[in-house]
């Protein structure tokens, strides 16, 4: 038996070089919880679909990761979430994009896969479908975290700086092409 679960939980804006011991501990605890929840399903003979759903749900519910609660902000100050899931057994797939009120987008993606004839739904339509399937809908403010909000303000400042630099020529190009890490995604 070689069953296995692998997860990734990139925080987007938080680099290893900026990590404090306290934060590192919190991230490792959250990742470990995601693994344990998924493993509990696999160990009992449950499906890989249920295991990946359980693991991703833990990370969506944690404010530490850029998904679900803790998602980054758009330029308009919203949290727009995307998710997808796929089954290797029958190559069924489901996805949602640009949703703002579904607490766990991965559950909505799974509902698209299992309860509709479609593969992808977006925006308000996806939210309406999710609600019709009994998936938890929340106020958009649920996704707010102070750290991500500050991240947006900092990114907007960077944008302003770029615009100023755009009035110079070589310097602005050098800035833009050497700051790829500032994409925050």
């Amino acid at each position, binding site marked *: 038996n070689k069953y296995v679960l692998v997860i990734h*939980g*990139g925080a987007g804006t938080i680099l290893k070089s900026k990590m404090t011991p306290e934060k590192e501990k919190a991230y490792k605890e959250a990742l470990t919880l995601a693994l344990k929840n998924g493993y509990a399903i696999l160990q009992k003979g449950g499906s890989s679909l249920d295991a990946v759903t359980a*693991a991703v749900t833990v990370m969506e519910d944690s404010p530490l990761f850029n*998904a679900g609660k803790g998602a*980054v902000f*758009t330029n308009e100050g919203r949290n*727009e979430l995307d998710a997808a899931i796929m089954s*290797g057994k029958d190559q069924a797939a489901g996805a949602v994009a640009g949703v703002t009120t579904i607490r766990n987008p991965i559950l909505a993606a799974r509902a698209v896969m299992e309860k509709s004839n479609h593969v992808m739904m977006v925006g308000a339509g996806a939210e309406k479908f999710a609600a019709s399937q009994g998936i938890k809908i929340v106020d958009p403010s649920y996704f707010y975290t102070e750290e991500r909000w500050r991240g*947006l303000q900092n990114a907007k400042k960077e944008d302003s700086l770029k615009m100023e630099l755009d009035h110079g020529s070589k310097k602005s190009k050098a800035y833009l092409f050497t700051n790829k890490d500032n994409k925050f*995604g």
Partner: protein
Amino acid sequence: TVGAVALDQHGNLAAATSTGGMTNKKYGRVGDAPIIGAGTYANNETCAVSCTGWGEYFIRVVVAKTISDMMEFGNRSLSDAANEVMMKRVPALGGDGGLIAVDKNGNYTMPFNTEGMYRGVVKADGSIVVEIY
């Protein structure tokens, strides 16, 4: 972005990805995570893949499905295919990021080419490894 891939006791693979996208994104931009074949893919004959990174490049390279196709049609191993796509093809266009993948035999790989990658694995014996790179 977060994601998970798994192989269960029945030999079935699955992949899942969820994300908030990019800070300060505009115009309803959608990245690779919900694009089946780019950021998320699973096929019992080959592998399950979940991606994170600069989504536009993952879409253009169709990262997840390309890895599966390299295994299916090119007889490449999981780590070989994933490394070529993640460490060569994506950077060749200017993109960066990482992925996790597991094949039908339970082999897994986690290549990445940028900082800020968080990874975790739990095997059948219950042993857990969590790392931040």
